[in-house]
C-alpha cells in the first residue's frame, strides 16, 4: 500500500480547514455556550438530588463525560452523509469514482486533515480546560493509552455508520431527512446527550448491544476509570473491535452492492 497518496490528502485537508477561521471562532463560541448550559443544568440537577453520586457518577464525572463527548463529537463529525449526498445530487461523485483510490478511503483520507486540526484546536484545549476546571479530576495513567486506542476505533465505527447511511442516499436522494435521523439516533444512543449510566434498565441493556455506545460511551468510560481492571478494559475494547470489523465490512458490502444502482444526472 502506498501511504504517500493518503498522506497527501491529509495535508490538503489540513490546509483547507485552516482557511475557515471565522467558522472555527463561531464554533468555539457555540461550544462554550453549550458547555455553560450543560454545567449549570447538571449542577442544579445534582444540587436538587441531595446526593453526591447518582447512578455511580459524581457531578465531576458527569461533567467530564459530557464535555468530552461534545469535544469528541466535534472532532469526529465529518459530515460524510452530507458530502456523499451532495456529490450524488451534483453528479460530482462520477469524478470521485474515477479516482485511482477506493471511494470509501478517498473520502476518509480527505477528511483526515481536519482530524489533525480539530484535535489541536478543539479537542486538546477542551481536554486541558476540563482538567484544570475540575482540578485534575481526569485520571492520568495507563487509561490514557487505552483511551487513544478506543478513540481510534470509535472514529472507524463512526465513519462506517456515516458511510453506510450516506450510501442510502443513493436510493432516496433525500439528504436532510436521512442525516437528521442518523444524527439523533447516534447522539442519543451513544450516550452523548445523557450518559448511558442514567438510562433506565431494559433500555440500557438494549443500548449496550448496539454499535452506537462504542462511539462515545466506550472511550469515555475508559478515560474516567483511573485504575481499571484489565478485564473490563479488554471487554470494552474487544466489543469495539468487533463493531469495527462488522461495520466496516457491512458498509463496504452495501456500497459495492449499491454502486450498480447509481444514476447520475449530468455532472
Amino acid at each position: 500500500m502506498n501511504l504517500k497518496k493518503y498522506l497527501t490528502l491529509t495535508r490538503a485537508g489540513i490546509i483547507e480547514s485552516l482557511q475557515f477561521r471565522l467558522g472555527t471562532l463561531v464554533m468555539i463560541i457555540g461550544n462554550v455556550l453549550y458547555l455553560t448550559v450543560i454545567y449549570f443544568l447538571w449542577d442544579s440537577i445534582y444540587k436538587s438530588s441531595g446526593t453526591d453520586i447518582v447512578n455511580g457518577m459524581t457531578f465531576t464525572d458527569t461533567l467530564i463525560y459530557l464535555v468530552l463527548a461534545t469535544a469528541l463529537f466535534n472532532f469526529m463529525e465529518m459530515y460524510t452523509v452530507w458530502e456523499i449526498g451532495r456529490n450524488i445530487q451534483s453528479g460530482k461523485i462520477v469524478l470521485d469514482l474515477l479516482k485511482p483510490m477506493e471511494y470509501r478511503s478517498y473520502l476518509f483520507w480527505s477528511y483526515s486533515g481536519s482530524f489533525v486540526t480539530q484535535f489541536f484546536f478543539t479537542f486538546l484545549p477542551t481536554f486541558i480546560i476540563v482538567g484544570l476546571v475540575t482540578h485534575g479530576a481526569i485520571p492520568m495513567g495507563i487509561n490514557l493509552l487505552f483511551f487513544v486506542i478506543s478513540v481510534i476505533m470509535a472514529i472507524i465505527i463512526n465513519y462506517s455508520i456515516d458511510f453506510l447511511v450516506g450510501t442510502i442516499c443513493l436510493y432516496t436522494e433525500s439528504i436532510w431527512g436521512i442525516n437528521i435521523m442518523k444524527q439523533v439516533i447516534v447522539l442519543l444512543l451513544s450516550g452523548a446527550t445523557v450518559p448511558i449510566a442514567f438510562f433506565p434498565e431494559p433500555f440500557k441493556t438494549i443500548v449496550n448491544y448496539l454499535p452506537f455506545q462504542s462511539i462515545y460511551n466506550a472511550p469515555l468510560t475508559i478515560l474516567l476509570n483511573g485504575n481499571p481492571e484489565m478485564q473490563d478494559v479488554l471487554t470494552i475494547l474487544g466489543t469495539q473491535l468487533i463493531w469495527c470489523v462488522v461495520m466496516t465490512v457491512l458498509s463496504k458490502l452495501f456500497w459495492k452492492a449499491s454502486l450498480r444502482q447509481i444514476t447520475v444526472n449530468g455532472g
Partner: protein
Amino acid sequence: MKSKGFRFYFRIYCKILAQDLKSKMSYRADFIISTIGMIFTNIAGFVSFWILFRNFPSINGWTYYEMLFLYGFSLISLTPVQCFFDNNWSLRIYVYSGDFIKYCFRPINLFFYYQSEVFDIKGLGQLAFGIGTLIYAWVKIGLAFTPLMILKMIVFLLTASLIMISMQNAAAATCFWIQNSFYVLDLVFRFKDYAKYPITIFNRLFRFVFTFVMPIAFIAYYPSLVILRPDEIPILSWISPLVGCLFFFLSYKFWMYGAMKYSGTGS
C-alpha cells in the same frame, strides 16, 4: 413603493404557498423521509428529557411536569420559525451565487417575498408534538382551563415565537457581510435546545446574558411563567410580548439594511 394592504399580501402568500407545496410533492420520497426525520428528532428530544428527569423528582424547585410544560411551550413557539422562515437557511447561497437579485425586482416587500417562498411542512409535526406535550403537562399540573387562560397562552406563544424568528433573521442576514453565515445560523439554531430550561438554574451573569444579550429566556421561560406561576410573575414576563415585537422589528430592519446594501455579483 406604495404600501399594500394585508389582504393583498395574504392572497399572494396563499398563491406562493400552493406553488411551493406542489413542487415539494414532486419529491415525495424526500418529503416523507424528512417528515419522519423531524418526528425522530422530536421523539429523541423527548426521550432524553424523560431519561434525565425520571432520575430526579424536581430540579431547582421545578417539578417534572412543569419542566415538561416548558418543553412543550418551547416546541410550539419554535414552530413558526421552522414553518415560515426556513428560507433563511438558503439566504447565504442565494447571496453568494447572485440569485438573490431576482427578489429585488418585485413590486412587493422584499422580506415578505423572500420568506414566503418556502413553507416547511415538517414544522407541523413538531407543532403536534408540542401541543400534545403541553396538554399532557397542563392536565397533570391541574391548571385551570378557562378561555382567558387560552387567550393568554396564544398571545404569549405568538410573541415568544417572534424572538426565535428575530434571532434567526439577524443570523441569516449576517451573510450580507460575511458571506458564509452557516456557522452563525447553526449557533443560533442550537439556542432553541436551551430554551426549555428554567433560567433560574443559571448564575447571575448567565441569567443576564440569556435575557438581554441572547434572549433565549423569552422563548419559553418568561412567557410561560404567566400561565405556570400566576402568583409571582416578574415584570419581564409581562413585557415579553413587547420584547418579541421589538426584536422582530429590529431584525427586520437589519435584514432589509443588509439586502439594500446588496449589490449583486455582476452576473
